[in-house]
Structure formats: structure tokens, C-alpha cells
């Protein structure tokens, strides 16, 4: 009978990824000269969990590498060897190796065996320099380890594992479990079989075995029990601490064969053991991972759902919103008094739909720490390779945005951080000469501002060099002028192929970066703004929509066409007086509002709608904010505020200048959603 456990592999891959991320986070932050005990234990547990899972799911290559890490970590946390920076770097590399192996099993990607051998060899060499070289644990015929740990200061436990009858059919292998226990101390193991029926009626797939173990170890009972986390439920394991005198008796009975199984579960320690004596699992200290454990804490009330399912749910939610909107539109024709109940029900439907939409949208919202946390490792490694000293500060990590945006943001952010490291932050010597601290600072900051998310990458490096940028632009044939403002000069670096780097490094300098950053961010509905002060540093702002799916907007009519103007772009609407209007050039007007003269954009002219109202005094002027620049839009009529579902024009048709997408109104008509900044750009281009 074959049981396919591969369908559970994805669960292991996901959990393993989380453990690796946690290990990397701790490796990057731990102080080697005074490592925190809990962090060391957390590292050991994570490595141990990965190894256990890899063994269960049949990935011996990962078991081998993780065993090397785990053994070294165990020695560090027991103060047998000191943690060093060199060791930390090797641990990071070993984590990369396991990640590579994981990807190999999950995605079928190539695995660099040489890198694996190299890292394992170096870790082994570190271990060998202090104590005899690490060897895989051996278990002899009576279950005694070949590399017994000195257990003078440890405890002795009697452990009985009585698995359920389906242990074999679950394809569980106990060898890695017992091998793990053998590494924890002096270990004896004996298998026994329960009384069995007559052979002719025996079911060979049914497990009749149980195991009795004696383990003398410096580990806690919780750590011992944790070994079984992947294979056993709480009621299948019993562990009791033995007093030293009981240890001998326990061992002498270990050789008996076919005696009745020891009753498991709730035996108390025979001699009134100290707080180390336990029954079953110690819930206070055991940790929940995938596998067969009774789960009690908040973490286990979540379930994993594929992104595709969430996207499908959001799409269907969007369709529901559109349908509800159509229903509301149709109901407008019904007398509100005669059809009072119907209108009331529709109001309730609208409220419920809105609540449901918010709940569904929140599923996709993830904290930006999801990508921010990746940069600790990036900055650490790159600063190291460049011989620079850099501190990375993270602010606003709990700021949430749409998961789709998070993933698309990773590459642009990575490029910006690399640029800061490579071209922004100076070497320690140069910084000190300039009167700055030797350690440069790169800050990643996220915040919600109105209906958008703003992500900043700031450094206190050398800043942009205006003259070099102008020279480079001139060399590239880009028209420039000395009278250009600094902001206009900074925009030149977004030109394709632009780079003022003296050298092309592995990191940057090929001139294919900032234009791609801007293009990627724009594709997300965002924009990039760069500011810089020579000698003091640079700051890049990325402004993104909160979510790609829905929008609060104001319906406006221009001629026979309907548009949506995002609410967060609108400052106010007014009907201008003639005296407030000024024609500054043929076809170009301004409107005077509270001391400011704002350019007037006629949407009817911009989108070639001939029947649009021509006289502003007969129409409505909407004051909008386009990333800090204020302008006035001329529309015929305001139709009302709506929350609309954004449909991509690019996906369904093509990119339309001046727009952020489209939506389907309640009457079934398609309305274009205007983008303030794109609108301004379109207007200026015309």
C-alpha cells in the first residue's frame, strides 16, 4: 500500500521558509560577544525543526546541512564554544544553502553542490578546531550512542512512545527521531511489540510496536518531547524524570522483550521529582509547528490560503459591488415611498456589501515589514563587500498595503537601497574626513498619507552631484540648461541609460536602474520623487495607492461622458466667477482661488468631447492635488460620490493616458478613472 505524503510537502516548504527567515533575522541581530540565551535557543529550535521536517519528508540533503548547523548551535548554547562573527557569517551562508536546497526540492531549480560542501566543510572546521570533529550519531545494537555527551549535570528521563496502529501506513520513519535523541545525551532504545493475534489473521500494516527509551541529557524534558513533534500526539508520548537510582533499574529492564507495553500518558514521577519531572507535554514551553500537536495558542487559529484563491475572492467581490451598484441605480426609478421596504433593503445591502468588501480587501493587506525585513541581510552583505559601515533603520514597518503591491515593490526598493549603498554612502574614511560619523545610515520608512502609501529611502551619504548629472545628460544628448532647478536636474537620472558612476560595479552603475524603477512604480499606479542635498544625502519617495482593487471617487460628467476623479485628489469644487478667470495665453487659462492662480485644465478639450460646456462660469471647477501641485479641472457636472471597483485598462484594452483604469457603473456604462498626475502630464504634453 503506497501513501503519497508529497501532497504535504508544500506545508513543510512554507514552514521551512519561515524558520529560515527567523534564523536569518536572529543571525543578523545577535551580538556575538554576548549572545542572548533565548535567541540561541530560538536558533537551535528553528534548525532542529527544519532538520526534523526534512527527515520526515525525505530530504536527507537538507538534514545533513541542518544537522551541521544545529550541532554547532547546540555547542554554542551550552557554552562549549564561543560564537564569533566568522561563525555568524558561515551560518548565514549555510542558511542560503538550505534555501537553495529547498528551492531545488520545491521548484526543481539547480543546486550548487560545491557551495554546500564548502559551507559544511568550513562549519566542520570551526567545530574541529575546538573539540573532536563532528560525526553523525551512532546507535549500537542496544541503543547506546557512540558519542555520549557528558551528562553529569543532566537529567535522566524514561520516555515511552506508543504510536497508533497507522504509524507504518503514514510512512513515518522513526530512525531520524531516535538519531536526534541520541545526539542529546546518553541514550538507550528498546523496541517492544504488543501481544498479537494469531499469525494467519495478522495485519502486517498495523503497528504493534512501542519504544522505551532512557535518555540522560542536559536538555529539558520539553526539548526532548519536542523531538517527537512531527510524529506523535500528546497522548502517545510519556516522559518521566528518573532519579539517579532509578536509572539503573530502567536500563536493566530495557533488554526484556515482549513484555506488556508500559502504560503511557499520566504516570507521575516515582520519587516526587522536582519541577523538571513532567507528564505528557509541557504546554508552556513547547512550540507549535506543522505536525501532530495539540494546539492552543492564537497562532493556530489561522489557516494558509493560496494567493490565487484570495484573488478570485476579491474579483468576485468586485463583481458583487458592481452588481449591487447596478441594482441601486435601477432602484432610483422606484418611488421611495411606495417601495420603502425595497429601498431600505437596498441600503442594508449596500452597507453589508461595503463591510464585506472591506473584510475581503483586508485579507490581502500585509505589513510592509514583509519586504523591509529582507533588507537587513542585503545591507549587511553589501556593506561588507564594499568595505563600508552602514546601519539600516526601519520605520513604519507595520504599515499595510496590498500584497500584490508588496511583491512589485521589492525590486524597485532593492535597486534604490543598492544605489544608496554603492553611490550614496561614502567609505568610513571619507565620511570622517567630511565630519560625518563613520557609520552611514540608510532609512526605510513607510507611512499612510491620505489614500496612499508613501515609502521613503533616505541616506546620509554624498547626495547627488548636480554638475556631474548635467555633464552626463549633455553627453547623452539630453537637452539641459544651467537655469534648470535642482528638482528638474534630479529628474534627469530617470532617463534610460543614465549613470554618472565612474565604475560599473556588480551592484549598479550600468544605467539601467532608475528608469526601470520609475517605470515599475508607475505601472503600480505610483510615482517616484527624488530630493537630494550634495554632501548630506538623498531621499527617494515612492507614492503608491493603498490597494489596486477599489477606489473612492467622485463621478463627474463632461459632455456625454462620465469620469471618476479619485476623492483623495480633490481639494474642493466651486463654480468660478468671471473675475476669477484669466486667459494667460490662447487656450490657456488660470483660475484665481484664495490668492493662488491655478492652471485650468478643460477635460472636454483634453479628451476631445465637443459637447462639453465651454464657459467655466456655467460649469464646475474642481481643485485637485497632483502630488503637491495644485490645478483646476473643468467639468460639466458633479454626479455624486461612489466607491468603484478598478478594472485595468491595460489588461482589457491598452494604456490610456491620463487615466488609472476604468470601472463599470450601475447603469452598465464604463467610466474612466482619472489620475491627477497623469492628467497633468497629458495636459502639458499637449
Amino acid at each position, binding site marked *: 500500500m503506497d501513501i503519497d505524503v508529497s501532497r504535504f510537502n508544500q506545508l513543510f516548504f512554507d514552514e521551512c521558509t519561515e524558520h529560515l527567515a527567523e534564523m536569518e533575522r536572529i543571525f543578523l541581530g545577535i551580538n556575538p560577544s554576548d549572545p542572548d540565551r533565548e535567541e540561541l535557543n530560538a536558533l537551535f529550535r528553528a534548525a532542529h525543526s527544519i532538520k526534523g521536517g526534512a527527515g520526515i519528508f525525505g530530504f536527507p540533503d537538507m538534514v545533513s546541512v541542518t544537522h551541521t548547523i544545529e550541532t554547532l548551535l547546540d555547542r554554542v548554547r551550552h557554552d562549549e564554544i564561543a560564537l564569533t562573527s566568522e561563525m555568524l557569517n558561515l551560518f548565514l551562508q549555510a542558511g542560503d544553502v538550505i534555501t537553495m536546497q529547498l528551492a531545488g526540492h520545491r521548484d526543481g531549480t539547480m543546486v550548487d553542490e560545491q557551495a554546500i560542501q564548502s559551507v559544511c566543510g568550513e562549519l566542520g572546521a570551526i567545530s574541529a578546531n575546538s573539540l573532536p570533529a563532528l560525526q553523525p550519531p551512532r*546507535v549500537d*545494537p*542496544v541503543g547506546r550512542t557512540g558519542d555520549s555527551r557528558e551528562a553529569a549535570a543532566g537529567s535522566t528521563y524514561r520516555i515511552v512512545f506508543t504510536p497508533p496502529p497507522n504509524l507504518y501506513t503514514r*510512512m513515518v*520513519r522513526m530512525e531520524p527521531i531516535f538519531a536526534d535523541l541520541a545526539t542529546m545525551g546518553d541514550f538507550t532504545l528498546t523496541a517492544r*511489540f504488543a501481544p*498479537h493475534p494469531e*499469525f494467519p489473521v495478522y495485519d*502486517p500494516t498495523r503497528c504493534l510496536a512501542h519504544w522505551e527509551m532512557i535518555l540522560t541529557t542536559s536538555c529539558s524534558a520539553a526539548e526532548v518531547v519536542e523531538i517527537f513533534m512531527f510524529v506523535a500526539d500528546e497522548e502517545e508520548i510519556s516522559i518521566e524524570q528518573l532519579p539517579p537510582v532509578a536509572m539503573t533499574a530502567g536500563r536493566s529492564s530495557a533488554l526484556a522483550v515482549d513484555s506488556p507495553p508500559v502504560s503511557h500518558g499520566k504516570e507521575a514521577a516515582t520519587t516526587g521529582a522536582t519541577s523538571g519531572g513532567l507528564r505528557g507535554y509541557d504546554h508552556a514551553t513547547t512550540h507549535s509547528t506543522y505536525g501532530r500537536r495539540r494546539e492552543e495558542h492564537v497562532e493556530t487559529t489561522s489557516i494558509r490560503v493560496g494567493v490565487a484563491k484570495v484573488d478570485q475572492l476579491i474579483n468576485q467581490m468586485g463583481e458583487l459591488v458592481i452588481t449591487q451598484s447596478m441594482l441601486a441605480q435601477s432602484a432610483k426609478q422606484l418611488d421611495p415611498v411606495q417601495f420603502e421596504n425595497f429601498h431600505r433593503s437596498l441600503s442594508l445591502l449596500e452597507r453589508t456589501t461595503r463591510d464585506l468588501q472591506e473584510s475581503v480587501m483586508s485579507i490581502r493587506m500585509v505589513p510592509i515589514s514583509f519586504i523591509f525585513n529582507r533588507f537587513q541581510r542585503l545591507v549587511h552583505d553589501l556593506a561588507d563587500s564594499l568595505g563600508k559601515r552602514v546601519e539600516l533603520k526601519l520605520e513604519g514597518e507595520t504599515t499595510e498595503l496590498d500584497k500584490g503591491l508588496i511583491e512589485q515593490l521589492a525590486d524597485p526598493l532593492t535597486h534604490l537601497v543598492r544605489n544608496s549603498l554603492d553611490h550614496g554612502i561614502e567609505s568610513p574614511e571619507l565620511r570622517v574626513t567630511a565630519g560625518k560619523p563613520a557609520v552611514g545610515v540608510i532609512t526605510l520608512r513607510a507611512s499612510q498619507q491620505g489614500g496612499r502609501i508613501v515609502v521613503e529611502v533616505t541616506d546620509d551619504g554624498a547626495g547627488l552631484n548636480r554638475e556631474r548629472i548635467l555633464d552626463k545628460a549633455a553627453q547623452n544628448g539630453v537637452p539641459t540648461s544651467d537655469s534648470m532647478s535642482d528638482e528638474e536636474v534630479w529628474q534627469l537620472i530617470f532617463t534610460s541609460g543614465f549613470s554618472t558612476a565612474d565604475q560599473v560595479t556588480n551592484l549598479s552603475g550600468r544605467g539601467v536602474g532608475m528608469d526601470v524603477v520609475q517605470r515599475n512604480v508607475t505601472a503600480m499606479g505610483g510615482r517616484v520623487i527624488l530630493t537630494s542635498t550634495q554632501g548630506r544625502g538623498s531621499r527617494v519617495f515612492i507614492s503608491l495607492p493603498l490597494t489596486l482593487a477599489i477606489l473612492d471617487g467622485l463621478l463627474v460628467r463632461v459632455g456625454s461622458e462620465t469620469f471618476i476623479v479619485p476623492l483623495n485628489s480633490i481639494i474642493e469644487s466651486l463654480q468660478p466667477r468671471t473675475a476669477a478667470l484669466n486667459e494667460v495665453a490662447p487656450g490657456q487659462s488660470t483660475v484665481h482661488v484664495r490668492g493662488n492662480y491655478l492652471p485650468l485644465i478643460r477635460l472636454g478639450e483634453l479628451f476631445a468631447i465637443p459637447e462639453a460646456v465651454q464657459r467655466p462660469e456655467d460649469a464646475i471647477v474642481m481643485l485637485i492635488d497632483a502630488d503637491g501641485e495644485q490645478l483646476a479641472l473643468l467639468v460639466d457636472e458633479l454626479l455624486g460620490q461612489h466607491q468603484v471597483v478598478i478594472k485595468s485598462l491595460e489588461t482589457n484594452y491598452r494604456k490610456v493616458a491620463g487615466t488609472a483604469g476604468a470601472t463599470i457603473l450601475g447603469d452598465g456604462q464604463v467610466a474612466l478613472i482619472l489620475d491627477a498626475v497623469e492628467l497633468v502630464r497629458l495636459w502639458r504634453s499637449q
Partner: protein
Amino acid sequence: MAKSPTEVKHRVSGDWTISGVESQFGSLNDTLQELAADRCKAMQVDCAGIDAIDMSGLQLLHLWMEYAKAQGVGVQLVNLPDCMQQTVRQLGLGPCFSGNSPVEG
């Protein structure tokens, strides 16, 4: 199986993991019936042909041996392959299979 009133030699082979134990069980059951019919007193089981074995296979083998013993037939395993010996050790089954020979000349 060589026939003798007192001792027989038997070979086991193939897959003795959870994937193959059910078919091995059938074969062992038949052997037990033949042993009873032939009134054998001892049986030597050559394990050299075992390709792979796990706890389910070792359990089966052990229980078969115990049952044969209960029928008055002494069973000795010989030529245990390395994989089998290792698995016996790793699973704490040494006492169950003590007195058997890894290799017989």
C-alpha cells in the same frame, strides 16, 4: 525450500517495507503451513535477498519467527544485509534479532 524432517532452509527477498509487507505476509503464511505439514524443528532463513526493510517488515519477520517458535520450530536468520542490520540497530530491535548471523560462511 529444501525439505528435511528436522531443518529447512528458506530464502526471503525483495521489498520488506510497508509497500511490500502484505505480499511478504502471504508468502510467510504459506511457509508456516508447510513447516507444520513437514513437522520441521528448525529453519534457517537466508535474508541476503532483502532489498529494503523497515519497521513494518521487521515486525512481520519478528512475529513470524515468534509464531514459528510457538509451533516448536526454531528460526535463525542468516546473511542479514547491511541495510537490515542498520535498521535493526536504529530502531532498537537488537534484542528481537539477537542470536542471528549477519553472514554465514
